[in-house]
């Protein structure tokens, strides 16, 4: 569960969001929507502990940083880096560090995550050789191996074709079925209505919970 208590967020002193209060239940599936520049990315980063609050609090109820996976918008991943897909994914496994090797288990998990996201047989493919859509699948595979309890997706379906979107959406549903909490920034209201039981709409510097978007509870 994540509780927002009168949260205020600023960029360079300018208020982006204020007076955000409410809760996101454990294991819920929430769509975060709102026009460009309404603060969706900033709010997700604040939930992940990557953006300081200028007011209020976010209570994470025992979620550690390692329990949170953020699939960032405009990932900083250097796509010219000479590294194979499987290694990118394996490096994201929890508890990879200086004294901890990437073991056979982690490599197997990376391979499985790649095939779950439709990148079968791409284990040794350099990241340089991926199309934009394939790259987004790779970021999903990396999120899978994080094995996080809270998963934050920032515009995860941008630059992804319809077939890939269906596949990645099924991954999101699988996370939901596994009891993980998922919050996804989305623009496609039709998708929100069909697949996301809860919504958080940002507009005019504040948040509106489960605003009427014609949602049928799922």
């Amino acid at each position, binding site marked *: 569960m994540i509780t927002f208590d009168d949260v205020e967020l600023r960029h360079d002193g300018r208020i982006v969001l204020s007076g955000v209060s409410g809760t996101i239940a454990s294991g819920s599936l929430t769509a975060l929507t709102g026009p460009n520049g309404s603060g969706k990315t900033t709010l997700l980063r604040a939930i*992940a502990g990557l953006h300081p609050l200028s007011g209020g609090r976010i209570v994470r109820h025992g979620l550690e940083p*390692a329990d949170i996976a953020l699939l*960032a918008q405009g990932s900083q991943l250097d796509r010219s880096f*000479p590294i*194979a897909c499987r290694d990118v994914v394996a490096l994201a496994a929890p508890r*990879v560090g*200086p004294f901890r090797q990437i073991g056979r288990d982690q490599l197997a998990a990376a391979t499985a995550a790649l095939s779950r996201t439709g990148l079968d047989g791409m284990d040794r493919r*350099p990241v340089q050789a991926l199309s934009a859509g394939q790259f987004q699948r790779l970021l999903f595979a990396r999120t899978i191996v994080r094995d996080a309890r809270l998963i934050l997706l920032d515009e995860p379906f941008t630059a992804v074709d319809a077939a890939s979107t269906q596949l990645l959406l099924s991954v999101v549903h699988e996370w939901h079925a596994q009891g993980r909490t998922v919050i996804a920034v989305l623009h496609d209201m039709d998708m929100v209505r069909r697949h996301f039981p809860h919504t958080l709409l940002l507009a005019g510097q504040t948040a509106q919970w489960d605003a009427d978007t014609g949602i049928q509870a799922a």
Partner: protein
Amino acid sequence: MLDFLLEPFTLGFMRRALAGCLALSVAAPPLGVFLVLRRMSLMSDVLQHGVLPGIAVGAIFAGLSVWAMGLGGVVAGLTVALLAGWLARRTGGREDSQLAGLYLLALAAGVALIAGRRGIDLTHILFGNVLAVDDPALFGMAGVATVTLPVLALIWRPLVLESLDPGFMAATAGRGGLWHLIFLVLVVLCVVSGFVALGTLMSVGLMMLPAVAAQHWSNSLAGQVRTAVLLACLSSVAGLILSYNLDIPAGPAIVLTAGALWAFSLIAGSRASLWRQAMPDA
């Protein structure tokens, strides 16, 4: 012909220089590969000039002791490296003009400090002098190589992750800054340890040129590291032979050789080379 190749190494100081340069050829190029991949090549410029004032101050206080000059160089190198990192963050990535200012300043300060001292030859400090590779200098190079390799192995994965995706690193493990700092310390140690044999301006060449060249031969990180080490070892051996026979300082001779290998890689390498671009199907 055989004389040309082997005679240099019948001399004790040449053998010492060879041992030291080979040690550095194994340790420095892997760091260079990371500098290239992280688009921090300019950092090597900053360092090669930045260590100079420190070496000068060490020499002023302790005479021509390799240890004192080395220590001064390490302190100065770390200072400019951290300053450069800070400037880079302050200017949001538009730091190149600031960095140029920084290293010009350091170079001028170093030259001014050294020029007035009798008994210190500026050319030797800038371009190296194999005759001066005594036991402390050799131990310095070998010692730095001995430290660099295991430490690099230890921080390898976090460093790869930090270089590949700093945003992800910051969001997960957090301590990206620590690995970066350890990495910078290793870079500074390698640049400084090579200064007796290669000179401050040239020792960076042994780190960077093989790394840049290696990009044209492999598209895996491990492959680039292996290639860079191989090219650096080749450059060291060939450069010292040239240096002895043609009577040019070791630093420039080794860097010229490394530069020739780089030019060859750029033209004929198996990846992103001019040859490949001209004949995509070859």
